[in-house]
Structures are given as C-alpha cells and as structure tokens.
C-alpha cells in the first residue's frame, strides 16, 4: 500500500510540540526581557533605536523600546503586548513588568525538566499571586492627598529613574501641577482625571529646559489671521466657533446657470453679504477674540477687524478648542446667529501671541480656575524633548494613580524583597508539589532588586544577601529596606523617600504572572507564516 503522503495541514505550516514549544516560549520571553533589563533603575542606560522610517528614538521607557522592535516569535509578541497593557492602564512600570514576566517564566524551566505538569505550576502561581496582592495591600501606606509634598515625593521617586531626573524636581512639579489642574470631582464623588484630553504637552525645540512650565491656561500653535489684529489682549471676551466664517455651499448638489450678467454679480454679492451677516451676529456679543475650527475668509477678517477690532484665529483643532472652552468658560457655537451672551468666555486673563523659536504661538493664560492646561516643554533637540515627553507622561500616570488610589509602597526593590521573604515562609505551608513553583515565584521576585543592584554597579551578591537578611528579620521591621540605586547602598526607603504607587506595583505583578501562566500552558505552536 504505497501512496503519496497525506497532507492534512497546509504544507507551509510549521509545528513545534511539547517540551520544545515550552522551551521556545521561555527562551523568547527571556530574550525580550534581556533587551530592557539595563533600563531599570536610576542608573539605567538609554537605548537608541532606529525605526523603519529612519527616525531615531532615544529612550529608557520599556514600552517605547519594545514598541519599536519587530519580533517574529509569537510568545515574544505576547510579551510586548504586556508592556502596552501596563502603559495604558497605569502608565509606569513597563520595564519591571517585562523583566518580572521573563524571570517568572525562566523560573519554571527546571520544573518542566523534572516533569512537573504545567497546570500544577499555573495553579501554584495563581495562589501565590493572591497572596502577593494581600501582602502588598497590607504594606501600602495611605497618604494625604491635600498635601502637595506627599505627591511630589512619590512622583519624584518614579521619575528618579528617568532621563529627566537630572533636572531635579522640574518635571515632577510639572506633572503634579498638570494633574491637579485637570482633577475634577463631580457631585457623586466620582473622580475624573482626564490627562489625555485636557493636559496637552507642547514640545518646542530651542530654549533651555528650565523654561518648561505648566501654563495657567492653554496655548496652541496658531497666529492671528491678519497682521493688524491685536496680539495682546487683557481680559478678552472669547467666542468659540466650529463653523467656517466664509461662504459655504450647501450639501445638495447645486448648479448655477446664469442667463443675465446681473445675476452673476448678484450671486457674488450674496456670498459676500452672507459672510457679513455672520460677522454681524458675532459682533453683536462684542468679542475680543474669535476662534474657529474651520476657515475664515479674507472678507470676514477684514470686517471683524474694522468693525469690532477683533482678533481672529482659524483652523484650530477640535481637541484644542475643547481645552480653550474649558479654560475660558466659553461654549463652542456652530451657528453665529445663535450666539448668546452666555456662550462668551470671560475667564481668561491674558491673551497674547508670542514667537517661540521659528513659530508663532497663541497663549491664553492667567485664567480663573482652569480645568485644562498646556504643558510647555523646551529643550535642546527634538529627541531630548520626545524623551522628556515620555517621562512626563509616566509621571502624570503616576500622579493620576496616586490621586485615584492614594497608597504608597516602598520602592527600590524593597517591596519585592519583602514579598519574596514572606512567600518563602508561606511556601512551607503549601502541601504537595505546588510548593516548589510557589517557592520559585518567591525567588523570581528578587529579580527586581537584583537587576537594580546590577545596573547601579554594586556588589550584587553582597547587597542581595544583606537585603534578604534585613527583610527576613522575624519582627518584620525591615520591610522598608531597599536598594538606593544612586549610592549603590542598602538604605531605608522611608528615610530616603523612595516610593512607588501601590496600584502600579499591583498591576505589574498581576500582568506579569497572568501572562506567564498563559504562556506556560502552551504545548503546541502551529504557525502558518510563509
């Protein structure tokens, strides 16, 4: 019975099974975590990446690095997704999550060789995770939200690891102020912190970093439309529009056929009067500034300037307009004829157009109770600015998390070491085979202090043993001790003021362990890539 081989699957499909697949997954995960390993801690190094478009990215943000890397292996892809999820959920800790996930996976390699079933390992991990969450919540210290100092303290320790830390508290102050500005509590007590919409970061190359500031209002990259318009106005009355101030054809298809020359003239005239009429409606509320999201025709500009001495800005983005509406108290209006007094914004104290670098920028500052802001970043080059923007983004994420969940845990690997010690103690009470993976997870957590120690150039073995002995002290007094990355010494995190938000840490553990569990359960990889 000889015959051609029976093809069941597509001929191109590649398959990896059993141990080989598990091994490949672990290897891929470890490879990804090795990439970002050196970017953890205050003595971290930056990575320079060349993206496919030829631009360069200089960063030590885990997510930003991994986003640019094109990986082949499916497990590696799944790791990269982790960094993204972490970034979107809490905004910080992207590097730790990758390192931890890589280590948690590597820890099980020996068990797989010993033929411990993956489902056993997964079960043990989930149990350990539950315990981790409990311990972390117990260690967490609540802080007083009303004090700026406390929040500054914690944001500072996150930013400590970043490039921007060279400028001390500058970025921290920016982040705290920006988040405070957009912090809103409604009547029901729901807290809304919409950094994405209402705190805009504007990067302008040039100047020095010390010029960075959070405006008491907003700015945008636009100039007044007509050179003769006023460029500085105190206490302006602001009208926001999202319609064009020019003649606009109707939606329905219209053709014009003229039979008389006079009709043509009349049609043109009408277009003009139409614009004039719109302007008159606007002038009725006596504005000083008119901002529209669409275009403004020359006729309208002229008319507004002559009749009302109005400054006019056109083609502002919708998102910018929303921010302007928040700081000035104006309502965005669509039909000029429906303008009312209540639609005019008067909360802005100063409008001015300034030239920064090569561009003109409009500033609306000195606002009363602004609930939106622009953050102005200045710096030497675009790459530096991009990195600072990423740092600021992280810092704002941290500040937001602290305001949402005002709990802190000691940083500098102190929490991880504490967890490792506690889990180790507890593992003795776990019955059966589950004990081994439980213990392995405990020691896997030590990867964070270890990497910190490695990156700051200390004596890794000595530091870790010292730290471990501090934490395993039976009276539980040593839980504040961690590694100070700057001095490469074991220090008390409480006195050194090195903190992390509880929510970031919790998210890191959850993400890392859950994803590791998922990868562990795989015993077959079928790929159909040609």
């Amino acid at each position, binding site marked *: 019975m000889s015959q051609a081989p029976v093809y069941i699957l597509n001929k191109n*499909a590649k398959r990896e099974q059993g141990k080989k697949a598990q091994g490949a997954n672990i290897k891929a995960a470890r490879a990804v975590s090795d990439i970002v390993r050196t970017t953890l801690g205050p003595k971290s190094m930056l990575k320079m990446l060349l993206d496919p478009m030829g631009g360069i990215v200089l960063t030590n943000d885990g997510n930003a690095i991994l986003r640019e890397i094109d990986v082949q292996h499916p497990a590696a892809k799944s790791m990269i997704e982790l960094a993204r999820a972490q970034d979107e959920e809490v905004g910080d800790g992207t590097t730790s999550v990758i390192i931890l996930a890589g280590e948690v996976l590597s820890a099980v390699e020996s068990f797989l060789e010993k033929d411990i079933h993956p489902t056993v390992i997964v079960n043990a991990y989930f149990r350990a995770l539950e315990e981790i969450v409990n311990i972390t919540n117990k260690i967490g210290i609540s802080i007083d939200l009303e004090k700026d100092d406390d929040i500054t303290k914690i944001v500072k320790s996150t930013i400590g690891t970043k490039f921007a830390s060279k400028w001390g508290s500058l970025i921290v102050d920016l982040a705290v102020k920006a988040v405070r500005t957009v912090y809103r509590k409604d009547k029901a007590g729901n807290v809304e912190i919409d950094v994405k919409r209402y705190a805009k970061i504007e990067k302008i190359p040039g100047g020095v970093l010390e010029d960075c500031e959070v405006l008491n209002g907003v700015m945008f990259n636009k100039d007044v439309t007509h050179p003769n318009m006023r460029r500085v106005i105190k206490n302006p009355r602001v009208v926001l529009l999202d319609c064009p101030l020019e003649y606009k054809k109707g939606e329905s298809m219209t053709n014009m056929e003229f039979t008389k020359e006079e009709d043509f003239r009349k049609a043109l005239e009408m277009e003009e009067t139409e614009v004039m009429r719109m302007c008159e409606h606007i002038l009725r509320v006596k504005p000083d500034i008119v901002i529209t999201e669409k275009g403004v025709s020359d006729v309208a500009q002229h008319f507004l300037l002559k009749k009302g001495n109005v400054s006019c800005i056109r083609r502002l983005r919708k998102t910018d307009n929303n921010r302007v509406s928040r700081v000035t108290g104006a309502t965005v209006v669509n039909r000029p004829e429906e303008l009312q007094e209540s639609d005019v914004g008067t909360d802005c104290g100063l409008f001015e157009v300034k030239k920064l670098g090569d561009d003109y920028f409009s500033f609306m500052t000195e606002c009363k109770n602004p609930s939106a802001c622009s953050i102005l970043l200045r710096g030497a080059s675009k790459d530096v600015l991009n990195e600072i923007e990423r740092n600021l983004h992280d810092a704002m994420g941290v500040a937001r998390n602290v305001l949402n969940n005002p709990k802190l845990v000691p940083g500098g690997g102190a929490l991880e070491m504490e967890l490792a010690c506690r889990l180790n103690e507890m593992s003795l009470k776990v019955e059966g085979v589950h004990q081994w993976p439980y213990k392995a997870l405990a020691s896997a957590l030590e990867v964070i202090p270890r990497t910190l120690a490695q990156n700051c150039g200390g004596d890794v073995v000595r530091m870790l043993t010292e730290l471990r002995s501090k934490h395993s002290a039976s009276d539980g007094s040593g839980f504040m001790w961690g590694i100070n990355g700057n001095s490469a010494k074991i220090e008390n995190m409480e006195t050194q003021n090195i903190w992390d938000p509880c929510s970031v840490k919790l998210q890191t553990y959850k993400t890392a362990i859950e*994803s590791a569990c998922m990868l562990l359960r795989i015993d077959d990889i079928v790929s159909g890539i040609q």
Partner: protein
Amino acid sequence: MSQVSIFGQREQGQDVRTQNILAVVALSNIVKTSLGPQGLDKMLVDDIGDVTITNDGATILKQLEVTHPAAKVLVELSQIQDREVGDGTTSVVILAAELLKRGNELIKNNIHATSVMAGYRLALKESVKFISSSLSVKTDSLGREALINAAKTSMSSKILNAESDFFAELAVKAMQNVKTVNYQGQAKYPVRAIHILKTHGMSSKESTLVDGYAIQATRSAQGMPTSMTGAKIACVDFNLNKYRLAMGIQVLVQDPEALDKIRQAEMDVCKQRCQKIIASGANVVLCSRGIDDFALKYFVEAGVIAIRRVPKSDLKRIANNTGAKIVVSLADIDGEESYEPECLGTCERVYEKRVGDWEYLFFEGMSQTRAQTIILRGANDFFLDEVERSLHDSLCVIKRVLESNSVVAGGGSVEVALSVYLDDFARTLGSREQLAVAEFSEALQIIPKVLAMNAAKDATELLAKLRVYHNAAQKSDTSDEKKQALKYSGLELTHGKVRNNLTHGVIEPAMSKVKSMKFATEAAITILRIDDMIRLAAPQQQ
C-alpha cells in the same frame, strides 16, 4: 477495454478509506493534548502573524487551515458542536476519530461498511436511551450548586482553572439574570443577552459583571452630561447631518436669493429633526450614523447625551432591551415629520465610565430584559480572547443545564458506564452488528484514556478500576444504594484516583453529552461511507 478518463486523480476502495482515516486520526492527535483539566493550550500563528492562544477544540481546528477533505469534515463537526452545544468541541473530534479507526479495522476484516454503520447507529440509540434512563440526574435535586459545578467543570480545562470559583459565580449570576419566559411559558436563557467586553489591564480577578448593557463609545461632545438617571433613549438610524438631496436630484432656481434659502433650509431641516427628538422627551440619543457638529450643540444645550456611530448591532440590542424602536425616518403617515414618544426606550441609568484606557457607556436597569455585561480584565489581548472563549463555553453549559435540567457525572464517567453497558448489550445481538457495537463500546473509552494520559497517569490501571466500579453498579440490585452510587464514578486527575464525580461536583449537562455522541457518530458514518475519491485537477490557465 477503454477506460473513462477524468482530468484528475481517482482513488478507490480501501486505499481511500485508509487515507481518510489517517488524516482524521492525525487531526485528532493534534487536539488530543488539550482535553481535560490537565490539558494544555495551543499557540496558533496565522499567515499574517496574528497569534491565537487557545484550548478550545473548535478554535484550534478553525485556525489550522486543514486541507484534507476528510479532515475538513471533522473541522466542521467541531464547529457544529460549538454552535449547538458550545462545549465539548475537543472530545467530539477525538471520539469521531476513534470510531473511524475502529470501523476501518472491521472493514479490513471484510465486514461490509453498511453493517458497521448499522451497528454504530444501534449502539448510539442504546447509549442515548441508557443516559436518559439511568445516568442522568435531575438538577432540581442539586440546586444552584449544580450550575456552579457545571460551569467549573467546563472551565477546569481552560486557563480559568485557577480562578474557576470566581468566574463560575460570575457566569451563573449573569445567566440567571437574563432569564426570560417565552410565550409558551418556557424559561429561556439567551447566551446572546450576555455581552462580553474585553479591556486589557488589571488582572482577571478584577473582571466585573454589570447589570445592564455597555458599549464602547464616548459622548459626542464634551459638554454633555456624563450620567443620566431615568433615561429615555431614542435610537435613531439616519443621519443627523445637514440635509442633502439624494444623488441626481437637481434644483433649478430662478432667483439667486433662493440659493441661500436652500442652504438655510438644509440646516433647518436637521435642526428641526434634533428638536423634535428632544421635544419627545429623549435624553439619550443613540445614532448609528453621523451627527453633525452643529447639531450636537442643540443636544448639549438640552442636556442630552448624544452618541454617534453606534454600531448597528449594539443599537439593535439596546433597542430590544430598553423597549425602544429604531427609527429609520421621521416621516409619519401625514407626510409630516414627527418623533413619537412611544419610540423611546427607558432605562434606569445611563452613565459614562472609564475602564482602563477606554470610555464605556453603561445602560443600567433596562426596562425590557435584563441584559448583562461582563467586563473582562487581564494581562493582554491574547489572554482576554482566550478567557472570552472559555467563558462563552461555560455560559453555554449553564444554559444547557438550566434548560434541560439534567446533568451527568463528568471525568469519563458516562463513557465508561456506556462502554460497560454496550459490551453486555452486544452479547445479546445475534447479528453482524454485534462486532460494530462492541467496537463502539471500545471506542468510547478513548475519552477517559486521553484524560488520564494528559495528566500523565496510568491510563490502563485507572480504566480497569473504573470499569469494575461501573460493572458493579450495573449488575447490582436497584435497592443497593451503595453500589448504585458507583455509577457516578469518574476520574480524579490531580491524584489519579477514581471517585464519585457527582458528589465532587464534576458534572456536565446530559444534553451536551448526548449531542456530542450523536454528532461524532454521524461524522464517522459520513466518512466511512466514502469508498471513492475523485479530485479534479484545476483547469489549466490559458
């Protein structure tokens, strides 16, 4: 003798049968390792590099790009099981492959295929009868516990295993909340009324059940309120844009003045529409098409939440659940435009909330049905996809338990019981079917065998023990309760023991067992009937 020629290949008789079975067995080997609580997942990469990680048989087979025609029958089989039952997609494939393998052996020994098929059918009929007469247990005697246990059993093989307590509770609660009674007075539990939303971030334990419906959308203008109690919902399926005439309509005007009037009218038409909707009392407007920026202003001023570009499917569901009518046009019978307040749906509370990095709009306390939404959280998208699939399976299982009201013990219990029973039954048959029925009984044992093998346990020993227990149960007096209870014996796979799975809460809906056996047998018969395969060559390209 001239041969009829065909453009292509032709294979006949035993050759084609062997080939088919080879393909089918290979396929079942692929999914085999994912069966049972100790089964593992597969990672599948498609041709553009997208990754799927799953334990669900139907999903694995769908992604595999199977090319062999007989193997395709099996892929479809698992698809049908997925649609009809929702769970047991892996076991159905394994069973079908085993039936085929054994059927083929019989045919090789010169038993005609039709006898084999007749035997299989007979065995199936007997099995179904036996399940309903003595293996199934009414859930009334087990209560809510049964639902949780059934859900947990279906989750046990999935990634949710470790969190199965939590998710089983979630799923059962959701399912019980969507209970509806149809006009015949039967209770129905539509799985579709449960909406699953996935948002990455946090951990799977933070998944929540929301009493109501949720869509991923944000209000169209920032000036609108974020929450609305006592919402009156208008579902609109036309553009709230500037009115434009349909293609090809030309308006001829004599007077240029009229041109401007057209323009104004365009805006006014839309304005009036908005105002009519507002006047009807609506305070939440969902539009499946666009809403013009200038139209939004009227809604903002009226304090109405308006949402544009709501997916049509979401709109339909919201309309159903709140009792709203989807309005396609405002035109009424008099040729006027109006918006009837009857078209409004009601809902206790509508509010916008941020979950992770996205905004969701929640509809709580809908007036018609209590739609439920489960918001899944987890490490990344692959994880969430798999959790969704597992949860869907569990929901289907709960539905079956609730509707059919009877369960059987899991962990290979039913299969072994049937196998013992059919063995005896075969011996009472004096015809050719006897052999086929005996083979059917052997084939059923593949399920406990694979379960034990995946857990790295001694399959032979465990199976022997199980058979003894079931034999004892079936031979015993009906009055001997202790021995009767042995008929629920099944495998316990973490420690490799045999125990009463009914009392330990490893249960499956009886209906899904029956259906999966039926499907598997049908598929096996379909493939066994084939004795000739003609594969036409692709037409030559010019």
